[in-house]
């Protein structure tokens, strides 16, 4: 049952082959059995889950259910969940029980879906390996000595190991796509503004976007309709109506114009990954697509621009964690300054502290123009690159990452090389565009991710293109051994 797609699970629930309670119990059992190895959950909400499953079963019994009623889902611990610990992977919020639900959580609840628990993540979503979590690193289910990617590492590992059929993630510079690639599953980061950020703890507000992990594009299409759409609580959410994504999944790819950015295929790219992407291109050609070399000349500038803008916003967003109203407070503060200093230095981990300091510096008087303003200019140029490219192609295709998952501890002492592993994903966030990562092969037993980048609000097209590939290949159906 746990290898079934969401459409199949839905079918089983609707035809009463299984109850939501049984299905939920099965996933809870699997979490108990396997998560000691993976550490993909921070909190398992067993009681909540079984109650929600019972409610879903009532809806299913009286014929009041929709297609996703009773389907379990794991939530990244960055989404506020009422009455449940919402830690954001940080000691700072280890004691924080949210008094409200994020809009994304509300919408899952309204759809009758069942939350299994809150997944592990890099602290405040800052990291590319899930090693920055206060709750310890997550292991890659394909090889427990390797990282699952980050920051949404817990969600990706949980879905890859079939501890949940789907999970949420957030993506500020690649935090959905990179772990999806490392864990061999499908992930989507929608267009900025497509999914409400209300209740999603902010890292870098102008880049953060909530999204999803599942085993296939088909599953993602069903799930995306739950969370996409305008939210009056988020001024930056888009008013454009979301189409029903499942209806266009099987559209023909004949005549599809695929762009391959030449900057993505240089010597830094792992050979096996390059070959896997070329093989995928062949599949698309067979489906009637045409292939075009394009250029995104400012790709290399996106990392420095990102590492000014994201820390700048984070330095301000994380100022609220001051030990005054909630979260970690140091013991017996001497005075106000002592309260701030100790609460914050005890509550935040190293990477978060580093980024707050970088961001504070970049916004300071005398440096603002040289850093923040310049980075914003580069950001516009990066977006312009994509804008130009989409004049001649319908989708941009390339690797999600330059190399497969790396070993735990391999890059922790070298933040710069860690930052560089996001080279292909970061520009997409700067431009606010939708991106996906889907499995496209293996190298030395580790999954390879292929990235698809769409035009703004082109999620339907992206899912259609990904689904077309998954109908021709079976990479997305592979399960790691031992799970």
């Amino acid at each position, binding site marked *: 049952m746990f290898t079934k797609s969401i459409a199949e699970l839905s079918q089983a629930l609707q035809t009463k082959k299984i109850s939501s309670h049984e299905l939920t119990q099965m996933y809870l059992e699997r979490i108990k059995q396997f998560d000691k190895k993976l550490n993909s959950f921070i909190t398992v909400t067993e009681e909540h889950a079984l109650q929600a499953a019972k409610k879903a079963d009532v809806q299913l019994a009286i014929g009041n259910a929709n297609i996703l009623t009773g389907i379990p889902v794991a939530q990244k611990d960055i989404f506020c969940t009422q009455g449940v610990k*919402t830690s954001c992977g940080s000691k700072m919020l280890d004691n*924080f029980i949210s008094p409200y639900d994020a809009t994304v959580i509300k919408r899952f609840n309204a759809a009758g879906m069942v939350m299994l628990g809150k997944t592990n993540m890099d602290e405040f979503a800052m990291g590319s390996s899930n090693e920055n979590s206060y709750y310890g690193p997550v292991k890659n289910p394909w090889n427990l000595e390797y990282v699952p990617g980050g920051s949404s590492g817990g969600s990706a590992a949980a879905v890859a190991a079939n501890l949940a059929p789907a999970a949420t993630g957030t993506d500020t510079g690649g935090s959905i796509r990179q772990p999806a690639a490392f864990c061999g599953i499908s992930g989507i980061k929608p267009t900025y503004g497509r999914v409400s950020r209300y209740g999603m703890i902010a890292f870098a507000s102008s880049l953060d976007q909530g999204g999803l992990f599942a085993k296939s594009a088909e599953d993602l299409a069903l799930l995306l309709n739950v969370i996409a759409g305008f939210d009056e609580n988020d001024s930056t959410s888009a008013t454009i109506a979301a189409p029903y994504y499942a209806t266009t999944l099987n559209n023909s790819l004949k005549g599809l114009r695929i762009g391959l950015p030449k900057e993505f295929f240089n010597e830094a790219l792992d050979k096996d990954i390059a070959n896997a992407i070329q093989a995928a291109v062949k599949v698309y050609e067979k489906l009637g697509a045409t292939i075009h070399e394009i250029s995104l000349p400012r790709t290399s500038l996106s990392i420095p621009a990102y590492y000014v803008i994201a820390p700048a916003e984070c*330095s301000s967003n994380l100022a*609220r964690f001051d030990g005054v*109203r909630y979260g970690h407070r140091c013991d017996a503060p001497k005075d*106000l300054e002592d309260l701030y200093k100790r609460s914050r230095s005890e509550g935040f981990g190293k990477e978060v502290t580093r980024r707050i300091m970088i961001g504070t510096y970049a*916004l*300071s008087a005398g440096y603002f123009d040289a850093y923040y303003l310049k980075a914003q200019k580069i950001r516009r140029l990066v977006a312009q690159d994509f804008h130009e490219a989409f004049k001649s192609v319908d989708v941009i295709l390339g690797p999600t990452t330059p190399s497969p998952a790396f070993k735990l501890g391999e890059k922790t002492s070298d933040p710069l090389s860690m930052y560089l592993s996001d080279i292909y994903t970061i520009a997409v966030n700067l431009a606010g565009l939708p991106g996906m990562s889907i499995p496209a092969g293996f190298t030395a037993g580790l999954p390879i991710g292929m990235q698809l980048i769409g035009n703004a609000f082109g999620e339907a097209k992206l899912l259609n293109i990904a689904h077309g590939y998954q109908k021709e290949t079976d990479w997305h159906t592979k399960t790691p051994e031992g799970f």
Partner: protein
Amino acid sequence: MEWETVIGLEVHAQLSTNSKIFSGASTAFGAEPNTQACAIDLGFPGVLPVLNAEVVNMAIKLGLGIHAEIAKRSVFARKNYFYPDLPKGYQISQFELPVVGKGYLDILLEDGTSKRIGITRAHLEEDAGKSLHEDFHGMSGIDLNRAGTPLLEIVSEPDMRSAKEAIAYLKTLHSLVRYLGICDGNMQEGSFRCDANVSVRRKGETKLGTRTELKNINSFRFVERAINYEVERQIALIEEGGKVKQETLLFDPAKNETRTMRSKEEANDYRYFPDPDLLPLLITEEQIEKVRSHLPELPQQKHQRFMEQYGLSAYDATVLVSSQAMADYFETAVVASGGQAKLTANWVAGELSAALNKSDMDIIDSPVSAAELGKLVLRIADDTISGKIAKTVFECLWNKEGDVDQIIDKQGLKQVTDSSAIEALIEKILEANPQQVADYRSGKDKLFGFFVGQAMKESGGKLNPKQLNDLLKEKLASGA
């Protein structure tokens, strides 16, 4: 050595919306601490601000009221600093692109001339909460009810040259925001707060002196005292060979002095940057025109009209338009008085205002209605009573002893206009004072007042003064 004072003012006007600028929580004053702060006001993780559309209309109103450019596109920015009553660690404000640009306000000076004070800008921002330092045994209490209350910060040019001008500007602005209905102007509750930038320079010097900023001076009286104290302090300092330091000062009204809050070196670097949670604020020409078409008559226009339509002096007009309620009261009273505008103005600005001040009352709570005051003026004008007797009637009206005519009747205050009765009384007085009559007739003209006084005393002040004068002159002359 002659010195010139230079003053610029920053006013924080709290906008009178029902809910906060970025959340749906109530803005009502005086609730139990922390009962009017929602997750957004408390800066909980994950919350986002959504702009209250009403504050935009209010900003447009102010912009139109001060003849300013209204920005078609303005931007909310974060002002970053740590303080316990600032929940997010930043205040959402406007920095480089404010909603209201350059404008001006004309103020009336004591000598009757008017002066134009430039306004640099006005921008929208959220208020912080309050820190409470008493009753917490060495700790501080935080009340976040006020956090997120909408403010318009209105920044003037350094155009004022004395504390008196500063007060005139503040009063004019205070009256304007109340006319516009965007701020209740309650200074005790902090709805209208003022910071003053003060510097001095030698007369003739064109460069500005180093300024100090006086924080949170929350009554017109304190503004004047604080500025005057600070001006004297700066002059004395320079004359002794010292230098003014750029710093922020707090005025202590109890000690009548200013003291340092923080120096320039200690000033925060606020690290302003555009708030990524809010879209730029876009205002269309249609929106501005819609607001303009619903604007009430503003104090300046009303002032002009009162002078033209009622023939009032600039001073009377200024007093009468100082609040919408006062102006409305006056106009209602004028109608009831049968059009006696000048006399009505004297009564509203004089007797009535004095009585209200004495009992610390607002004109809308006046025990004497506008219609009754107008009637009283009418009774003076139609010679039913004299101006002096009218003061007695006014007192009765104030004490709710009946309406004007009832009071006049009941107390027999009606003026005597029957000339035979007046003549009889005059004769009686002349007979009783033969020596004074003789003296008058031999040239002591000044004794005329004596006879008038006697007659008024005898009649209880009810004689028509003009008739009395005429008849008395006649009688005194005829006996010669």
